């Protein structure tokens, strides 16, 4: 089974990378490095693909972020839930797909399936490496925004389906949730769908993370920064 390297030495050394089918929640306050960490974890390594569902940034901005993190954009697909509301005529391409707004879970689900199918067909990038099943990193940025548009119960069901699909295709899922914006019940329900939780806190402008759910990795807080897609841990 494929292992997804995180680029975080403490995790990769202890686990050898995340197992295929892992779903990881980044639980973080506003103005933290959560997004940078998500890009770092979702950045496709050689032979891998990344799919980002973006509810906050346009597809072009997502690609810029991946490029800044050192990713080859030909292996990155974006489902953009922003652009179509202002530009209704924007057309889907193989790697960029659009839904009108984050309300449209039907559209999001279909675009996700279409993109995964293209990756499985071997026609996504034109530079396929032939690994099968193709390793796919998937990120929802962010679950918080989806929760603004749909009820918790519905979103729970939607995420249940998405996390199950990720397991089926042996992918790796990353989901960002704002820890300050939702009550305990919401956070705990979303956590239920995850294999691993990375919690972030900010103290005096410094970011700290701790990892929960991995055997052999303690839940101590680590001070960190993200630079050019690499997680740097302060010793």
């Amino acid at each position, binding site marked *: 089974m494929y292992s997804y390297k995180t680029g975080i030495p403490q995790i990769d050394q202890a686990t050898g990378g995340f197992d295929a089918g892992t779903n990881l929640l980044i639980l973080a306050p506003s103005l933290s490095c959560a997004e940078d960490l998500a890009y770092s974890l979702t950045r496709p390594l050689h032979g891998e693909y990344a799919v980002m569902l973006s509810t906050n940034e346009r597809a072009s901005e997502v690609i810029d972020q991946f490029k800044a993190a050192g990713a080859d954009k030909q292996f990155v697909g974006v489902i953009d839930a922003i652009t179509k509301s202002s530009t209704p005529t924007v057309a889907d391409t193989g790697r960029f797909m659009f839904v009108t707004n984050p309300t449209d879970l039907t559209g999001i689900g279909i675009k996700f399936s279409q993109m995964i199918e293209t990756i499985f067909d071997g026609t996504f990038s034109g530079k396929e490496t032939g690994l099968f099943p193709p390793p796919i990193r998937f990120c929802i940025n962010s679950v918080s925004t989806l929760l603004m548009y749909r009820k918790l119960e519905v979103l729970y069901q*939607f995420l249940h389906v998405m996390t199950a699909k990720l397991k089926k295709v042996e992918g790796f899922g990353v989901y960002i949730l704002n820890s300050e914006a939702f009550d305990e019940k919401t956070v705990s329900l979303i956590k239920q769908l995850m294999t691993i939780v990375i919690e972030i806190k900010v103290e005096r402008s410094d970011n700290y993370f701790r990892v929960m759910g991995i055997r052999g990795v303690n839940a101590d807080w680590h001070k960190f920064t993200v630079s050019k897609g690499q997680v740097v841990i302060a010793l």
Partner: protein
Amino acid sequence: MISSGMFGIDDMLGGGIPEGSRVLYSLDPGVDGQLFMISTLFSVLEKGQSCLAIIPHTTVDAFLHDVGQLRGKTIQAKDHRIAFLDSVDRERIQRSTTTREAAEREWQARINKLCTDNKVEVIFGYFDIIYEDFGLEKGLKLLSRDCCPPDSTIIIEHLNFEGDTFLESLGVRKTFDLILAIKSSFRPLPHFNYFTILYTSWSAQLRRSVPFLVRNGHIVPYIPKIVVTGPPESGKSRFVASATELGMSVDQSGLVGEATTVAMDFGWLHWQDFDITLYGTPGQPRFDPMLPVILNNAMGVVLLVDATNRDQLARARHLYKIITRRHVPLVVAANKKDLPGLMSEEEIRKGIGTGKNVPVFLISAHQKDDVRAVLESLVNSITRFIY
């Protein structure tokens, strides 16, 4: 009748959807099934009927663009009679009302007004957001004859997170005249889409499941793999050639001059609005290691036997056992019915070891009608098979 706008589906429904029906297209999350309702929408618009599209998940412009992209055709105000209630209307209703009841009344008033002003005959509604806003009962009431014109046809698309039990409960309550569930599976093929006609109020037909492809803006029912197997010289290559419009065999001349298949037969046909691909196996036992590969992902199997050759029955029995382990629909075709020394159906059944549930056809593989009868039976079994 209203045409569903989809190849093959009207036939399965007995000619289409009766006017005044209430129809549910239920989509499992992630299944590429939006074209089902859009196909029906086009069919109605092109017939000149007046429609209302309730699209609370999107704006009119984005919807029209999406429809154009999906179907390869656009909805034109000058050619088509269509009114909309979209996400902008939903936001306005949310802003202008303070309670759920008030919002419900406002929706009802707007639907009524649009239906009256535009003499709407068919209503198309995307249900899951209405369901979320008002709950199941009130949501269904908004898209029922309580709120819409009494003789109107109502077509609803719903993103179903609640699975088959939800649909079964709607079927039991007879909430809809037609429930068509659109689903996907990773078996027998990855990213395999199919639809199931779960319930119709106007016919007592059995539940039917049919795989489909989306091609050039249309839903095309298809069967990606039917395998034709059997003992040597039972007529498999002839069967595939008679059945298909396009195809080829990988054969080698035998010592006595007869060609024998050494890899496989392959053929394609478009029949009864289905796209079907046939794979014929070699019959010689030395090719048996290939059988699992060819049988992999098959949706149905034709076991061909020579009805005049008793010596082949042991080999046919062996193949029958291999096939039945696969749990796929199976039909036995006993070939060469026009030659002397024909065995009876009972003798063939006993020789192969089939039960009464497996259809046995006496055929001549040279007769296209005989071959098509075998395929018809198998396609019927496949469409009733629960994946």
